[in-house]
């Protein structure tokens, strides 16, 4: 079974469940890409599900960053003190496979054919870098973005919430428009845009948030996109690979890991070339 490509992952959709798998394999097993984890796969699966069903609440297992998933999708997390079970749940596997399913629905994970074999050395180096970043004592140097500051901008960052100020769409939202009431902040922008310009920064010049992974990846690539709704934004490219980028090319924005510190993964949207 080939599987559909969805946000850079492999997708299989059934009426009662959605399976999202990493396209990368190592020794026959599905492994996460350079900026993916179970949370990023779960977000992709849930966003696809939301195109077909109304999902008001979902329960997530340990290992999924529930608050980030909720902010990224707008779906409420199951409250353990609630009287009723959540109608939807996220299921994880030992491999880089995640399922979003109706509660207690039978799930059969298909064998999907697409497999991009990664080099063991590269995979180990990236995993090691993430482990180091995720240690609680690790704080990248530099213009430190505190957790509070990150959380404050989480909705515009993860849901691409913009602001309609008169006839102009503004993203990220401006506090001045919120304070004076001239801007409405509940506009979710389309996750598509075109490349206005791009660069690949050498590992030595990358911000310290990326200093552990940039040498493994050979630098970091950033695109400046004009979003289909009007505003511009800068985004890292997906999988942190040295992407083949073209001016004016269409790209989509997908949910991925940005970096980690103090034991907390910062997620964000990254740009991925649209090949269809």
């Amino acid at each position, binding site marked *: 079974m080939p599987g559909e490509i969805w946000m850079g992952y492999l997708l299989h959709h059934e009426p009662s469940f959605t399976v999202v798998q990493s396209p990368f394999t190592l020794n026959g097993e599905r492994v996460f890409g350079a900026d993916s984890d179970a949370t990023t796969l779960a977000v992709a699966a849930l966003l696809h599900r939301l195109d077909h069903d109304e999902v008001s609440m979902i329960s997530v297992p340990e290992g999924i960053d529930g608050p980030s998933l909720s902010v990224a999708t707008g779906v409420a997390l199951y409250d353990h003190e609630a009287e009723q079970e959540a109608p939807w749940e996220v299921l994880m596997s030992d491999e880089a496979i995640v399922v979003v399913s109706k509660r207690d629905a039978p799930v059969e994970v298909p064998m999907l054919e697409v497999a991009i074999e990664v080099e063991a050395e590269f995979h180990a180096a990236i995993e090691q870098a993430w482990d180091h970043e995720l240690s609680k004592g690790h704080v990248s*140097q*530099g*213009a430190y*973005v505190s957790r509070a*500051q*990150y959380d404050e*901008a989480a909705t515009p960052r993860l849901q691409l919430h913009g602001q309609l100020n008169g006839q102009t769409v503004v993203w*990220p939202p401006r506090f001045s428009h919120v304070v004076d009431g001239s801007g409405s902040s509940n506009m979710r922008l389309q996750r598509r845009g075109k490349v*206005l*310009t*791009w*660069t*690949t*920064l*050498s590992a*030595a*010049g*990358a*911000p*310290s*948030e*990326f*200093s552990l992974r940039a040498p493994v990846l050979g630098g*970091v*690539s*950033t695109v*400046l996109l004009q979003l289909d709704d009007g*505003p*511009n*934004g*800068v*985004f*890292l490219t997906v999988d942190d690979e040295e992407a083949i980028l073209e*001016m004016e090319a269409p790209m989509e924005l997908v949910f991925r890991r*940005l*970096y980690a510190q103090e034991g907390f993964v*910062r997620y*964000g949207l990254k740009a991925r070339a649209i090949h269809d």
Partner: protein
Amino acid sequence: MKCLVLVQEHMVDVAVVGAGQTKYGNHPLGLKGMWAEAAAKAFASVDGDFVADLVEEAYIGSLAFGGSQLGNTAALLTEHSGMDGVAVRRVENACASSGFAFRDAWMAIKSGQADVVVAGGIEKMNDLTPERKRYWLGVSGDTEWERLAGLTFPGTYALMARRYFHEFDSTHDDLVHVSVKNHLHGSKNADAHIQKEVSFEKAAGGFMVADPLTLYDCCPTSDGASCVVLAADHLAHKFTDTPVWVKGAGAASDNLALHDRPSITQLKATQVASSKAYAMAGLEPRQIDVAEVHDCFTIAEVLATEDLGFAQRGEGGRFAREGEGRINEGTTTVNSSGGLKSKGHPLGATGTGQVVEVFKQLRGQVEPNRQVRDAETALTHNVGGSGATCSVHVFGRHR
């Protein structure tokens, strides 16, 4: 209206009467020693009797990059330069810190609150380990959005360069011409960080820092300090027979993040600041003989030549290609000092360092082989970040 006329009649003119700087580069001294050296050179350059006690106010620009005093830096520095007790403060506007320090000093005199004021800047950058230097990469961009999208300033300016090539008839070769010119000028400047010429071929084939920008498109990491003495018109001629007059001043700001600007191939803050400065000076861009522009990256000089009016929009590449900014070859010499690219870029010191250069150019005091002939007017252009802040000053030999 009567009141306004009264104020205009009493508006003070401001002159630069002294200027000095350390050599830029890997300086053996720390903050205190470098500042003391720059201030001593500035005071010694005043032709008449001058003592530090005359200074009423001081403004010192710095990002506080190095491993030294972070808080109350300015008071520590004045203590080590004989300006005990002076009203001093640190001014921080990223790489435009001392451009704004100079503006503040000018305003202090212009307003009538002070007669003798010092403006300066300083940065110690090479006392840090590579890991600690990384701390500072991108701190003056919109960190929450740009830095977390992997951008530091080489990346930000690389985005601008690629877009510029896309919109206009220009290629990376035009940036190479900027690099070659500024290295040529800097090779003749005893205070420059990099005093050597570079060939077109070498500059074109440099290590890729941020595609399409190579190492030869980027300014070096420099230590340095600069200091200038400003005086009110009624005192200027007591200090020197050849004051350099501040004929125009302008400043502006823009969105911090590149992605929030309608165009990334022009710096609105530069356009606004320079328009104000030209209007105040009563001069047109083509009347500027020598300009020190903020070429932190070669693309920045290409954009600046357009934004400052030396070249038409989209013609900055041609301006560079045809060598119009070379000393004594075009209407306006651009970066006779070597610019940030070759003279160096000790962040906080750069703005007043530019003033040191034009002060000497207008008084015929630079090395003869890089003296701009018959220079009567000059301009300095100091930018913070990727264009979020900008100060422009226009100078003249005559009041």
